[in-house]
């Protein structure tokens, strides 16, 4: 193997350790979609504008089309597939369902993953902060209105969940 063209990488994807040999030019989005068959992450532009490909790398939201798989060697990746725990949906998923925050659902994974990162660091955002956080995600179907309601409500649900977790720990 020419190390300059192919590399062995080891990543943790949604909690599972994965070892693969990849072309160095393979984007991480294509890696998780076409090599790991985690197809919940989508590609809408492949030039870093639409946000459909957003995933978490070491807990931070990144554009999967603008990062190489080899750059994630040793990192932890989280995709939309990690959100629900078995039958239990993630609070953001519930909020999006309840507020009709998706139509075709193509942009949705990117939006959810963006929010997971953003709300973890800003649990009580102002409306304008929440909008700014979502300004890097294009949606052609919803006109954003219900995405915004869902995100607001999702933030609230996450706060409640956080509280009840605290209660349990106490």
């Amino acid at each position: 193997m020419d190390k300059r063209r192919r590399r062995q990488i080891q990543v943790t994807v949604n909690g599972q350790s994965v070892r693969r040999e990849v072309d160095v030019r393979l984007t991480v989005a294509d890696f998780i979609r076409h090599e790991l068959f985690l197809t919940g992450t989508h590609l809408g532009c492949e030039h870093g504008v639409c946000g459909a490909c957003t995933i978490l790398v070491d807990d931070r939201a990144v554009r999967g089309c603008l990062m190489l798989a080899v750059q994630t060697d040793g990192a932890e990746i989280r995709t939309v597939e990690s959100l629900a725990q078995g039958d239990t949906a993630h609070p953001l998923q519930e909020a999006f369902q309840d507020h009709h925050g998706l139509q075709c659902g193509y942009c949705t994974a990117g939006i959810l993953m963006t929010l997971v990162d953003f709300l973890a660091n800003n649990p009580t955002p102002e409306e304008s902060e929440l909008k700014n956080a979502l300004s890097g995600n294009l949606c052609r179907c919803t006109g954003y209105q219900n995405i915004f309601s869902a995100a607001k409500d999702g933030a609230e649900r996450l706060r409640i969940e956080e509280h009840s977790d605290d209660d349990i720990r106490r």
Partner: protein
Amino acid sequence: MKPPPFDYYDPSSLEEGLQLISTLDEAKLLAGGQSLMPMLNMRYLAPQSIVDLNRIEELRFCRSENSSVVIGAMTTQRDLAASPLIREQLPLLVEALSHVGHLQTRTRGTLGGSICHLDPAAELPVAALALEATLQVRSAKEAREIAMGDFPTFYMTPDIMPAEILTEITFPVRAAGTGYAFEEFARRHGDFAIISVAVSLSLEAGQVTYARVAVGGAGSVPQRAKLLEDALVGERPEDSVLDEAVRLSTDIEYIADVHATEEYRRHLFFVLARRALTRAARQAASES
């Protein structure tokens, strides 16, 4: 839209990186990748080699040094915006960062990457220009310093050699009595600027003693509005003075593209410069 083939290297120390690029021709340095990766995906570029700087941890830092703040070139925009040191010492940079891209791109995008990519519409080079930043550039053989003002040579072409790496950026911190403002006009939140204006302005006894005004988006490189600066120094920042100073700004180069004509850019520069000056002057007055 998939990147073309290239050889990939990811040195884990600066020294290793410098050695490596001294031996490669046609290597492209990969910093945050938020501009380079789209260009690769669109195949606007097909470099023989990519040297990825992301594993060089020593290039990620922010520290206070004498009366300066020194930032490692690979520090991400996200880390910068969150750094208490930067928030405290370089409010102009923080304001500029609020216009840079989106959450996801700021996670990866770096200060050094943005300065070297030198997109004329990008915010960080403009802020660095207004703040009179100094850039430390290293090659395997030598280290040199270059003022941000001398860095751009022409359109998206910085004064840096293929075998060199921008390692750190030093921002002098001004004493009290200085106000800052960053104003930008973009069509959508997070877009590149059609015009951006960064101002750093000091007052003493109500008079402007120091003014730096930088403009982005206007021409082929980020520019200083020198005539404007000159017109301010020694004056009281009253409305009529600011109006006049902006009007005197005839030394800015403007270009036309799909987003705006030269005339519209000039018009916007006048509007934004005026806003930024008022805000910076007001802040300077309250600080002094």
